[in-house]
Every structure is written in C-alpha cells, then in structure tokens.
C-alpha cells in the first residue's frame, strides 16, 4: 500500500485495518467472547469468516461486522456450528 492509496475505508474514517482490530477487540469483550473471527482484505473488499454457536450469535456477529465496516464492501461467511453425531469413527493407527 502506498501513500496515494490509503486503502479501504480510509476516506473520512479510520483505516480499515484499525477498524478490523477494533471489531476483534469489541467481539472478544462482547457477550459471545468471539475470538475466532477471520478478517481478510481482498482488494477493496473485506472478507469475514466465522463459525457461530447459535443463530443469535450469528446475527450478533453479522450486525457488528456491518456496523464496524460501514461504507466498505463486505463479504461474510458465518456458518452455524453443526452439532450432529458423526456417522463413523476414525481408526487411529
């Protein structure tokens, strides 16, 4: 990144990198203690991935992401944790 291109979200606000760090701190301190959110910058878009423990947690994360990255192009992939029984064991050698 050079000085002519301040990066996504820099216009009139904090650079996106700092916004990402602030989001992660906010989520860690929040009701779901979420520490495993993956945030990546691809060109002018932000990619956010996580696995949420419940539908309520998922919508909380989506809201927080949308709020923190207002004005940026955001792609999210926040899956719900699957709590089914595995259909077969692994034979560990």
């Amino acid at each position, binding site marked *: 990144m050079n000085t002519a291109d301040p990066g996504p979200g820099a216009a009139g606000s904090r650079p996106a990198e700092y916004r990402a760090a602030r989001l992660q701190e906010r989520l860690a301190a929040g009701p*779901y203690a979420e520490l*495993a959110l*993956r945030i990546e910058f691809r060109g002018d878009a932000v990619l956010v991935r996580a*696995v949420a*423990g419940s539908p309520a947690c998922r919508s909380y994360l989506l809201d927080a992401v949308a709020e923190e990255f207002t004005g940026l192009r955001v792609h999210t992939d926040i899956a719900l944790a699957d*709590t089914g029984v*595995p259909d077969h064991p*692994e*034979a560990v050698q």
Partner: protein
Amino acid sequence: MTGGAAADRAVADRGVSGRTARIAAIGDIHLAPDAAGRYRPAFQRLGGVADLLLLAGDLTRHGTVAEARTVAAEVAGLDVPVIAVLGNHDHHDGCPDQVADVLREEGAVTVLEGSSAVVPVGGMQVGVAGTKGFGGGFAGRCGSEFGEDEMKAFVRYSRSLADGLRTALAELAGCDLRIALTHFSPVPDTLAGEPLEIYPFLGSYLLAEAVDEGRADLAVHGHAHAGTEHGLTAGGVPVRNVAQPVVRHAFALYELHPAEAAGC
C-alpha cells in the same frame, strides 16, 4: 492382569468389541445459558458409540459460574465417563477453580490439570493425562525465558503446565492406552489454517515433548478454531485438533487399539 480376567471384563464392559477403545472428543463448545441444550441430544447418544467423552477446554465463553452450570447440565448423567481440561476462556472470569468445581459437582466431570484419570474399557485400562497447556510457540520459533519479567513469567507458566502433563502421563505408565488431553496445541501441524503470526499463542512444543516422553497413544487438543484435525508429534504420536469448528459435529470419534498387552 491375566488374559482370562481381561476377557471376562471385556464381556462385562458395555459396548466394547475386542480390544478397542472408542474415544469421543470435543473442545471449544463455548456454552452459556442462552445455548443450553444444543449438544445434549448428541451427547445422549454417546453410550451407543463411545466409551468415554473428552472435553478439550473452552467449554464456556467467559468462565463464569453460570456458564459452567450450563456445561455441567449438558453432560450430567451421560452413559459414558466425561473427562475435561479447561481452556483460556474458562479462565477469563478469574475463577477457574470454581468452574472446575461446578463441572465436578453438578456434571460428574473429572477435571484434569497436571493430573490423570484411568477408565476401564473392555478389560483395558485407558489412561487420560491432562493440562490446559499454554502458548510459547514451536521448536525453533518460540519464546524463551529471557528479558522482561513478563516474558519470563509467560514461558515459565507454559513450562510448568507441560511439566504437569509429563508427571500425569508418567502416572499412566502401565496403562494399555494413554491419551494426552490439552487445550493448547502440542504441534503446529493442527494449526494449519490459522495465521502463522499467531502460532505462538496457540500452543507450545513443550507439550509435545511431554507427550512423546510419556509415550502417549493419542494427543487431543482444541483452541485452534481455524486449524485442521490431523497432526503428528516429532516422536510419531498422532495429534487431533477437536475444536468444534474443526470437527463440525457434536464430537469426533476415534478408535484406539493397544499395541500390546499391558495393565495399570
């Protein structure tokens, strides 16, 4: 233990065919009262598919007593013994001992920290040694006991927990099968998928050293939500990351076979 007695116990023990131990394991379920019951339907089916359930830490979100109660209710009265270590989240509220007590008293969970437990399975003795473990990094790329007091304390803490695992595994020397249960990872293999920059916060090679010295048959850990399931220590011990987002089920299932006849 004689062969005859072992055979009799194999018949007497529930749900076991031959000399196989069926281990269910899950970490990072991060429960709180609003998620109560999410794992219960799957856990209630454990009796049919496993001989014991291992919980690899981060059972709660913030380590509060209320969250520990949710976890205890989730595993209380299951058909299989439940053995756990705590994770960093279970320490967050500053009362890990209370969290462990609630799990023991209300959930009948055996909570390990530098200690071990032995479960009879099909005439075998299956030993589990556990510690939360801590970070510090992996051989050649790790922190050392040097410089500021804070850095020394960080590395010393990690070393003392790994020493606890070593001592606990030594207690299991005579068991047919030995499992090392931690929250932090003993190897970098199972962290693949996590950013390289945070590896030192995800595990420590000191744990792997203890696993190898204690001749464990399997090492199970959690903590690395974006990691991968399979790894191996330098000594050849299989490692499994059972963090819930990695396992993508209520638990992972592993079948273990003892290499040769032994007894505790």
